[in-house]
């Protein structure tokens, strides 16, 4: 874990991190990794399919997780192992939301705006709304709005004396919003059980990091709120897992952590975007070579946890699952027009 940098270091007695690169991080088995790899591949396959369906006019809009999978699924796995977390993800978190437990068909229904979309039943952009059975809220895709909400959620957990830790996800772009400041400041004052996770892919749509901030690391802001800021390689599944695990522990007992995961956006911003307008071709090419899913697969083969054949099988299974989901969602009904007036107010 050479990458990891700390400002205002985390004051945890947790050993092991940074020293045991060769062995698995605490709490993780070979079996876990194989299972999570299959889920990662499924998410990637879904992500690619959705993009293709957009080109066919069947999915109006999609944001891709490609390049963010290690950050999302690695941190999710830490949360799931912990078992007492609540998540506020953002719109680029298909891989996370899917791995959290939605079926492929449910995901596809959401992307097509069909009846049965578990987040909003077709009212919102894909996977926006809430998935309470899986402890996820993302009311909207308004950038930055989730930070104060998740802070308030964490505050309520503290008031109620339960031991939930909130994970709040956002991009580098969102870090510029005033509410990011307000949320972190309050979380610091009350030492709330929250981990702020910035998936920094160096772009807010087309705006590069140099026009967004004068610092290298969003995590450097944590010092101004009185809590630790940590930078990790967001393409490295194990580093993400281990650091998130540690951050959750810290948050539960000592207060907030700002965890910055350096990711890459392998695709354009959304299906509506053409990144060639603003990203040099060399950069696009270079970045697409830095694929966290491929990296995880290679690692698992290297370690002997998977054979290349098994990897191919996993990919084939994923494709099959996504095919079936596509068919099911295409055949599904649109939401009934009479639902237009439902739930303006709670019933």
């Amino acid at each position, binding site marked *: 874990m050479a990458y990891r940098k700390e400002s205002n270091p985390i004051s945890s007695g947790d050993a092991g991190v940074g020293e045991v690169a060769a062995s698995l991080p605490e709490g993780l088995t070979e079996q876990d990794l194989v299972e999570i790899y299959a889920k990662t591949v499924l998410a990637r396959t879904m992500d690619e399919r959705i993009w293709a369906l957009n080109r066919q006019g069947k999915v109006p809009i999609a944001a891709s997780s490609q390049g963010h999978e290690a950050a999302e699924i690695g941190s999710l796995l830490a949360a799931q192992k912990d078992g007492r977390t609540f998540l506020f993800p953002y719109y680029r978190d298909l891989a996370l939301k899917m791995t959290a437990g939605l079926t492929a068909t449910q995901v596809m229904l959401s992307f097509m705006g069909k009846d049965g979309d578990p987040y909003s039943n077709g009212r919102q952009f894909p996977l926006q709304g809430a998935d309470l059975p899986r402890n996820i809220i993302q009311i909207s895709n308004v950038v930055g709005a989730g930070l104060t*909400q998740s*802070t308030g*959620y*964490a505050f309520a957990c503290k008031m109620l004396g339960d031991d939930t830790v909130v994970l709040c996800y956002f991009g580098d772009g969102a870090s510029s919003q005033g509410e990011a400041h307000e949320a972190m400041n309050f979380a610091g004052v009350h030492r709330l059980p929250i981990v702020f996770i910035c998936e920094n892919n160096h772009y807010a749509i087309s705006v590069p990091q140099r026009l967004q901030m004068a610092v290298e690391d969003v995590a450097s802001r944590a010092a101004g709120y009185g809590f630790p800021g940590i930078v990790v390689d967001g393409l490295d599944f194990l580093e993400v897992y281990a650091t998130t695990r540690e951050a959750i522990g810290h948050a539960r007992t000592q207060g907030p952590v700002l965890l910055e995961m350096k990711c890459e956006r392998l695709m354009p911003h959304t299906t509506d975007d053409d990144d060639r307008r603003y990203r040099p071709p060399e950069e696009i090419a270079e970045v697409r070579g830095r694929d966290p899913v491929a990296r995880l697969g290679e690692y698992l083969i290297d370690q002997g946890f998977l054979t290349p054949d098994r990897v191919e099988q996993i990919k084939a299974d994923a494709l099959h699952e996504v095919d079936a989901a596509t068919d099911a969602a295409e055949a599904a009904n649109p939401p009934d027009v009479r639902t237009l007036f439902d739930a303006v107010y709670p019933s």
Partner: protein
Amino acid sequence: MTERSVIEAIRDALREEMSRDPSVFVMGEDVGRRGGVFLATQGLIDDFGEDRVIDTPLAEASIVGMALGSAFRGMRPIPEVQFSDFIWPTINQLVGEAARACYGSNGALQVPMVVRVPYGGGIRGGLFHSQNVESLFFHTPGLKVIVPGTPYDAKGLLKSAIRDNSPVVFLEHKKTYRLVRGEVPDDPYILSLGQADIKRQGGGITVVTYGLMLHYCLEAAALVAGEGIDAEVVDLRSLCPLDKETVLGSVRKTGKLVIVHEDNITGGVGAEIAALAADEVFEYLDAPIARVCGPDVPTMPFAQSLEDAYMPNTEKIADALRKQAAY
């Protein structure tokens, strides 16, 4: 029955609901030891502690955003926006997020939150401590908007608002806080949200109003009664849900409609009342629909002379009633 001021009635409502339900809490700037700048939360920190009476940093967007998040965890937050004029930074969380959380999650999320907002002028507040802000909230499906004018209504409606599962914007006219006093039952009571109240019966002209203006309308109605003008004063109390039936029923009876509010006229709540009448009870109308409202300037100035010129008052309302009667 005990005589209470509006601010006392609000304080009583907060205290009773906080005692009744441990998930109710208040948060905002200076709500703690200071007791709020208007003392609405005075004493609550002594009774309920720092954990349920939260002095926040000066950051309105987060006050509402965090209240919203806490509501998702099952709390019933009562964020206070110190003056209505400072509500603008909260609009994304309030109008963009809270109002749609239920709809946008297809009913999975509920937002039992009451945003308390001291508002309104006539108190030398100048451009930035006097605003009427109801029209945006009135226009936002998913919110409820309550505007009490008396201690009785304030207490009963605030208690209901706190028990409601929708986000409520609870608008308290600052000038009524100490000026308006009235009888309040000693026994617990609540008033359901969404019912207008006919504060004065009459057969000649319907006057629709709310908030501080209720009192000026009642004064004006009393003033012109001696001239043979028989006004009925409808106090909306709740802008959303809007009690269309009571308003339109009164217009059906009187055939004449005057709408009074302090907010500036163009695009105010009064426009909607007029539009509803001009559509739904058109055939009953015997006269043009008149509005007595603040003029289209950016809120009332600080100087006494200018503030007086801005404010609708008893005399201006009485004149409108006379004109309407003579039509």
